[in-house]
């Protein structure tokens, strides 16, 4: 069992700070939901882990005590971290099949493509399409499938349900639910879709203005209604 650990992570865009000392752990096989208002810093948190170049990161990020911070993105990816970015970023010049095959690494079993296509809804019938021919939701599906191609240990999912039709979300929920148990994947799931997180995550972290304001189990969150008022909905004043 591996563990992805962030301790006291600070991130900034140029001179503007967006995360202030975030600590968080994610075990393999576990799903942790990241909730927070728009602009709270969820995306920034995921970008910090994958070392997206626009963010400058300070603090510790490690898998099994092996430091990730400072490594180039591709090395982090090879340590078993996959990323579903919030803006999909499908390679438009490639076909969907090429998009997926490109992400297929040696660590993954040879039939990974078949597995992924079987588990992620929608992509099966898109394989021969070119990237630029996809609708918004189709891009989202391809982006998710691509992240799974390397048989990662951890997946950072940034709003995977955005733009997907309800039926697809339902199917996606089923297939994501299987990932931890069947493949031992740890998932960090940034979402606005509360129900989706509630159905999948064991633990939840609430991000608010660049800090982790609360962590706890999903059930605690569902019961503690003032948490939602304080950190997620428009209810109360911001801290």
């Amino acid at each position, binding site marked *: 069992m591996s563990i992805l650990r962030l301790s006291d992570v600070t991130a900034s865009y140029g001179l503007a700070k967006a995360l202030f000392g975030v600590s968080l752990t994610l075990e393999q096989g576990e799903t942790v939901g990241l909730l927070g208002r728009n602009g709270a810093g969820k995306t920034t948190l995921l970008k910090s882990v994958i070392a997206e170049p626009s963010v400058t990161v300070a603090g510790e990020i490690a898998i099994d005590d092996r430091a990730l911070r400072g490594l180039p993105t591709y090395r982090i990816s090879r340590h078993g971290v996959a*990323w579903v970015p919030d803006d999909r970023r499908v390679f438009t010049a490639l076909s969907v099949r090429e998009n997926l095959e490109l992400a297929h690494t040696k660590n993954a079993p040879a039939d990974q493509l078949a597995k992924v296509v079987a588990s992620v809804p929608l992509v099966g019938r898109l394989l021969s399409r070119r990237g630029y021919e996809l609708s918004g939701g189709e891009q989202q599906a391809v982006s998710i499938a691509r*992240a799974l191609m390397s048989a990662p240990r951890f997946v950072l999912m940034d709003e995977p349900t955005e733009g997907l039709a309800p039926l697809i979300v339902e199917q996606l929920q089923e297939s994501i639910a299987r990932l931890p148990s069947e493949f031992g994947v740890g998932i960090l799931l940034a979402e606005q879709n509360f129900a989706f997180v509630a159905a999948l995550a064991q633990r939840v972290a609430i991000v608010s203005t660049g800090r982790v304001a609360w962590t706890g189990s999903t059930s605690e969150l569902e019961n503690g209604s003032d948490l939602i008022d304080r950190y997620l909905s428009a209810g109360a004043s911001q801290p």
Partner: protein
Amino acid sequence: MSQLVSVLLSGVAYGVPIFLVASGLTLIYGVIGVLNFAHGAFFVLGALLTASLLGGATPSLVMFILAVLAGGLLAGAVGLVTEMTVVRRLYRADHMTMLLATYAVLLSLEGASEVVWGTDSRSQRQPELLAGDVRVAGAAITMYDLVLVVVGIVVAVGLWLLINRTRSGRAVRAIAQDATMAQAIGINAKTVLLLVFGFGSLLAGVAGALMAPNVAISPSLGNAFILQCFAVVIVGGLGSVEGSLVASVLVGIAETAAVAYAPVLTGFTFYILVAVVLVLRPQGLLGNARVRRA
């Protein structure tokens, strides 16, 4: 009839070497999106090294091939250094900044070659085996041009396969579009870009070495070719090797046809062709507008 054959033939003989010179540029610009002004300098480097290794004398075929390879390798090595010291830092900047950077590289390399090889022009002879001319359907073409055409086609096919049929080719296309995402799926973008730039420079060097027997070689030789190279790559369509080849041959045939049938237009056909293609097909002959939009 024989004139038509001759026009077509010499058109190809004129056009394919342009493609050969542009091939490295096609790779670097077409695939990774860097408009490399320094391309002409890498080209000249190849020519200068080859000529100075062979000392202008008529070499044996083996010596010639070795010298051509050496020219290519030198250009490739300088290309690697350029990528590591300059280009790499600017991938995230815009087109124009990259242009300025590669222009600076061009000046530096041109200046450095002036220091090393002087400003005098020199000449180089091809191996005896490749001298003389051959007749095809009544039209004369030099043996050496024939060789260039063959090499050009081999390079075109090879590049096409590399880009479209190999995993690394796909990786390169992915990096070109979104280097961060490519890294996020485990591609070592830095190294791939380095190798592509190096390989593009190597192609430029080889082209320069191969063109050496055709021209007077001096550090400023690149200027005579760079314009056509840019045009050919862009008219062919972004990222399209086959487009560049077609564009080069069209350029060649247009000019030879003008010489034969419309002498007033000589020297202008190239410009007319480029303007017409761009006005009718803004994305270039075989370019794909939709890929660009994304």
